[in-house]
């Protein structure tokens, strides 16, 4: 993530070209954001609400500073700073993090549009009423780059000073340390090539204790501290845990999803796809600051700092469709249960909003409607909703359904052709959108399906499997080309 010095020289930009007075001032870096690029998507609330892939912030722009630089300036996260260049100045909250080179202040471009509808009555349409973030373009002096003849983006020094004000920063994720909990795991290439047949261990389930990816005796899994081994007591259970058991024996299907961490790039496209497919409400900047975003899937970003090299991992996290789901048993009104095809089903119409299911979900993937978000939908906008998915009222839970509407459609399609569902018939929105095909959907009861193969792969593991939740979502470890401990 850090800006490599070589990258600058490739642009043939001489540091002397940076205008501005003091060499002690920071180099200003205005860069196009992943979500808005140059600002063409900035009016879309759904894009505003997607967490930034690195900062995990929503709604707004931030002055990114290196940790030491921020310390030198006496600026903490959320302090509103003024960024001043010869061309202009903007005020925005500071966000110090380790992904920025020291001596640089970085601001995403493409925000700060004036409100289109400042008098919009609805409190939920903050996207229309307010200016979101700041426009960073006025900071650029507007010189041309001699080599290309285009605008010189990187050509100004900026002075950053605290204004004394504080701003609440909407963050989808606060810490990037996974505390040795093995959410996003990795193994070295060498270990992957070395490892024999993990199949015997991969699904040993209840009896085998933590045969859940700790199986490789830690040699390839750094940072994933296993729980104490199971004692002799549970040896009685000899039957291996097979995820296919979590569907009714008459059902030909047990749906499962696979997330390959090696190919996941953390782009968040799956979140957009999911939100659009499933009519997820937009909670607005205030809702996001309160931690009430309604995404059914999130991409967790973890930074492992073992060894000298920084290793960033992304893990998509959605409902795990547990075979023995802790959320189900605590619901008093049967609003969530396990269906015959192995899905964890949420019946929002039955929900009365005790919210116990969310408390008892170890993956924290359930979302609660704090407001009646659907009030924001009016006549022309309502045509943008997916008619196959209902909108939820205030006071009820919702969560990932594995795009149950697409499953129904796929099964209908297959039934019309008089066959069972095959790989590729059904693709949930997240998997469909994923640019690197990190997500795969399929039938775990079918021995030859893609997901079944992936589940038995050497890299396979399930998150928090030691709780015996029997997740239907499988993960595959990222591959580290070099061993960080040796590097």
């Amino acid at each position, binding site marked *: 993530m850090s800006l490599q010095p070589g990258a600058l020289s490739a642009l043939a930009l001489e540091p002397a070209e940076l205008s501005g007075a003091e060499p002690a001032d920071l180099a200003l870096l205005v860069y196009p954001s992943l979500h808005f690029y140059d600002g063409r998507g900035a009016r879309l609330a759904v894009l505003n609400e997607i967490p930034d892939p690195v900062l995990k912030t929503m709604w707004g722009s931030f002055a990114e500073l290196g940790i030491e630089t921020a310390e030198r300036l006496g600026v903490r996260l959320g302090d509103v700073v003024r960024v001043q260049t010869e061309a202009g100045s903007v005020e925005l909250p500071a966000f110090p993090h380790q992904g920025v080179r020291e001596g640089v202040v970085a601001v995403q471009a493409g925000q700060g549009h004036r409100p289109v509808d400042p008098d919009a009555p609805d409190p939920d349409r903050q996207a229309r009423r307010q200016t979101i973030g700041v426009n960073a373009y006025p900071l650029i002096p507007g010189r041309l780059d001699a080599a290309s003849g285009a605008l010189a983006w990187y050509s100004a020094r900026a002075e950053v000073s605290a204004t004394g004000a504080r701003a609440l920063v909407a963050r989808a994720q606060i810490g990037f340390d996974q*505390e040795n909990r093995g959410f996003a795991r990795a193994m070295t290439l060498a270990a992957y090539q070395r490892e024999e047949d993990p199949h015997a261990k991969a699904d040993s389930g209840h009896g085998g204790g933590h045969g859940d990816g700790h199986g490789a005796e830690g040699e390839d899994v750094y940072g994933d501290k296993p729980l104490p081994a199971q004692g002799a007591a549970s040896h009685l259970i000899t039957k291996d845990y097979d995820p296919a058991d979590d569907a009714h024996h008459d059902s030909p299907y047990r749906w499962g999803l696979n997330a390959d961490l090696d190919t996941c790039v953390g782009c968040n496209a799956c979140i957009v796809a999911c939100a659009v497919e499933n009519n997820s409400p937009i909670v607005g900047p205030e809702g996001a600051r309160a931690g009430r975003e309604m995404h059914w899937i999130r991409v967790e970003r973890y930074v492992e700092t073992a060894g000298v090299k920084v290793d960033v991992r992304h893990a998509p996290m959605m409902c795990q469709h547990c075979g023995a789901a802790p959320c189900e*048993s605590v619901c008093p009104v049967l609003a969530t249960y396990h269906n015959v095809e192995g899905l964890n089903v949420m019946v929002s119409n039955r929900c*009365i909003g005790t919210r116990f299911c*969310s408390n008892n979900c170890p993956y924290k993937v359930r979302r609660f409607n*704090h407001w009646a978000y659907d009030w924001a939908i009016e006549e022309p906008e309502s045509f943008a909703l997916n008619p196959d998915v209902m909108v939820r009222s205030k006071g009820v839970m919702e969560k990932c359904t594995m795009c149950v509407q697409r499953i129904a459609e796929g099964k209908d399609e297959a039934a019309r052709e008089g066959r069972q569902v095959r790989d590729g018939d059904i693709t949930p929105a997240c998997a469909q959108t994923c640019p690197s095909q990190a997500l795969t959907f399929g039938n775990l009861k079918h021995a030859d399906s893609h997901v079944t193969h992936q589940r038995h792969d050497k890299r396979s593991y399930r998150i928090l499997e030691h709780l015996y939740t029997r997740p239907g979502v499988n993960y595959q470890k990222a591959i580290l080309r070099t061993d960080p401990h040796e590097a």
Partner: protein
Amino acid sequence: MAAATEPLPASPDAINDDILRVLEPPSKTYVLGVLFCGALVACGVSAFLYQVYWGFGVTGLNHPVMWGLYITTFVFWVGIAHAGTLISAILFLFRAKWRNAVNRGAEALTVFSVLTAALFPLLHLGRAWKFYFILPYPNQRGLWVNFKSPLLWDVFAIGTYTIISILFFIVGLIPDIGAARDRVRDWRRHLYRVLAMGWRGTSEQWRAHSRSVLHLSGLATPLVLSVHSVVSWDFATSVVPGWHTTIFAPYFVAGAIFSGIAMVITILIPVRQAFGLQAYLRDVHFDNMGKLILITSSIVGYAYGMEYFMAWYSANPYEQMSFWYRGFGHYWWATWTMIICNVIVPLPLWFKRMRVNLAFMWIVSIFINIGMWFERFVIIMTSLSHEYDPAAWGYYFPSWVEWTILVASVAFVLFLFLIFLRMFPVIAIQEVKELHYEEAH
């Protein structure tokens, strides 16, 4: 009774006079108190309606912390509700006679707090207007309820407890209503005549009455253990680190008795002073309640220690982190308030001198009330804000709506208690009399 050092009232008839005097027309302060409490209750009702109209966005609840002040306060009031049954039923079975003067007030407190507590699960429902979904009634959807859910056990446990404690309260009250009927001369006479249902104290009535009280005590004793155990299982049956721990049931029961007795002391000391009931609420009562506080405080302290020890001993990173966070994370102030109020502050009560010092007892009891409220706050907040997934850690602070409803709930209990004070004898006349005759004998 060995500890009866202070004089008892002169005659059984004087008992009626003394106790029924409380029912005489109220003073201005009393009326103001009732109005004040009523106003606060009205504020709470408004806040609730505001929340129903807008949704849970008006509270401070957010993504990882889905339970907040409401459940805290719910558990708190359920806990308070345990003192009445403990004093009335358990001590009745143990034949501890000192209970006689205290039990009526404690039972009233039980009824009012359990009624208040029962409101909170409704207040905290996302769709409170659909609360009836939780009852197993036949419906055209053909769908029943989930009897495996701790929240459903709550419905049954709290419901049973409400009904049984009200019945227990009324059964104990009937003879005294009879006495009030024979004394009071104003409009309430008619009310009492109806409520006494023809009570005349015949031997047949007393025979059925004593037997019913005995049986209700026998039923209420395991009930009182079960109710707070069930409430504790709301937490303990989950998989949340910091909630899922086996000691919760007895620990919650001890904590409930602890806070309940403290609340009884908090309320009865002012009542004793205001209505001149020194002859009835004597040193021995406060001495014994002080001892109960000591025992339960020790159990609660043991449980704190055991939880922390086991979290460390488990070598389970989730448990360890959860308890580290509890002591030194965002909510350290709540945790240490809880420990100081519940374990440290009651320590002077090991000395009898402090137990019979009513001013001191009153202050200690208030600290315990605060500490026990914080205990529930700590258990709920610290565990939820720091669960398994590090990407889903968060922080919660209650909003003004929640604080308003908390204050209103206190006002509601006080409101009901004040009304009760003027309507019904606050000390069980017949039981004090029974004791009087036994001692004279």
